[in-house]
């Protein structure tokens, strides 16, 4: 154990090493480490936030799809209803038209029959008059017997 000036020299060297480390090594490295810790924390936070956002978006999309599907079924229902309505209306219209046409045709038939009957009646009247005049062999005053003939015609 021989103490000598090496002791003092090494103390000075040690002091310089410590100061170098305090000044040039420690701050840089701890700064880098702390910044990285911050970055990692931020990254984790961002990931978590993104995860939550994704979940939220998923939920929203699912809700929207559900709503859209519901709307689609509603629209289909309504369309079907409308189609049915149109069909019913068309059918009703058609039936009404048919009825109308049928009624018109019947009217026509009735009026034509009426007319034919009247014509027939007139013809029969005139034929009767002609026959009667032929039978009587004399001119019957058509005007004088008109009332009689008309009555005859209505009786036929």
């Amino acid at each position: 154990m021989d103490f000598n000036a090496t002791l003092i020299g090494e103390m000075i060297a040690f002091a310089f090493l410590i100061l170098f480390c305090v000044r040039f090594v420690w701050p840089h490295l701890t700064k880098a480490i702390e910044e990285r810790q911050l970055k990692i924390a931020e990254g984790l936070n961002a990931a978590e936030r993104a995860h939550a956002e994704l979940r939220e978006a998923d939920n929203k999309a699912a809700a929207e799809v559900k709503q859209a599907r519901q709307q689609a079924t509603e629209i289909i229902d309504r369309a079907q209803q409308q189609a049915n309505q149109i069909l019913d209306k068309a059918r009703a219209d058609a039936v009404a038209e048919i009825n109308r046409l049928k009624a018109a045709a019947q009217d026509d038939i009735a009026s034509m029959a009426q007319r034919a009957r009247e014509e027939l009646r007139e013809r029969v009247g005139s034929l009767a008059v002609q026959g009667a005049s032929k039978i009587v062999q004399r001119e019957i005053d058509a005007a004088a017997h008109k009332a009689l003939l008309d009555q005859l015609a209505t009786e036929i």
Partner: protein
Amino acid sequence: MASEPQGGLTEYIQHHLTHLNFRVSPSGFWSFHLDSVSVSLALGVIFCLWFWSKARKATSGVPSKGQAFVEIVLEFVDGQVKDVFHGDRRFLGPLALTVFVWVFLMNAMDLLPVDLLPVITEKFGVGHFRSVPTADVNMTFAMSLTVLILVIFYSFKAKGFGGYMHELFTAPFGKWFAPFNFALNLVELASKPVSLAMRLFGNMYAGELVFMLIAGLFSAGSWLLYGMGIIGYTVWAIFHILIISIQAFIFMVLTIVYISMAHDHH
């Protein structure tokens, strides 16, 4: 080195335990152990340049492997400091880092073959060269006395002159035992650097000595002893890896503990 078994071994060990001494004045204190100084300074410079080169390019993004290693060492030391000391670590952290890495590197010189550096220096005409600075009592006391100065400095800084004096004279037995308290506190204060330095010195000196004794087997003149020497050297070197790490760790932790104790109020 040595050819005859008994006297040769003693001579060999004594040769290896002699420092490369540079005398400034003919006698007394003013001389330097050039081997301790050169090796410790070289290792200190290596430590500084290594850590500085990584710290200069330190990025907060993805670190390179070298930066990651340096950061692991730093985080390890910082964790130890954080456990013991609750305050501003901007000085104590780098101090602990310097102590740990520097002591570890100097201890690791023990793992070089004991004859490697002496043989090389002999080629340059330097007869004596001890390669482990921490096996030099000057080296270990230089560090522990620096720690003592820091302990005293931080005691004054944390408690003020009056507060520290009050503590020195009144703890632990009250003001009626002031001289006794003061003597007790001085012993306590002095025991810190002595135990710190002697523990490291003793471990490294003994380790070096065991390496030399085993190396003595190589020149014992028997192939059996030569083989035992190889096995013994290997086993002791592997065990020594543990010792040098533990000693560096203990020196660092005790440095932290002493300085954080200086901050504590009694």
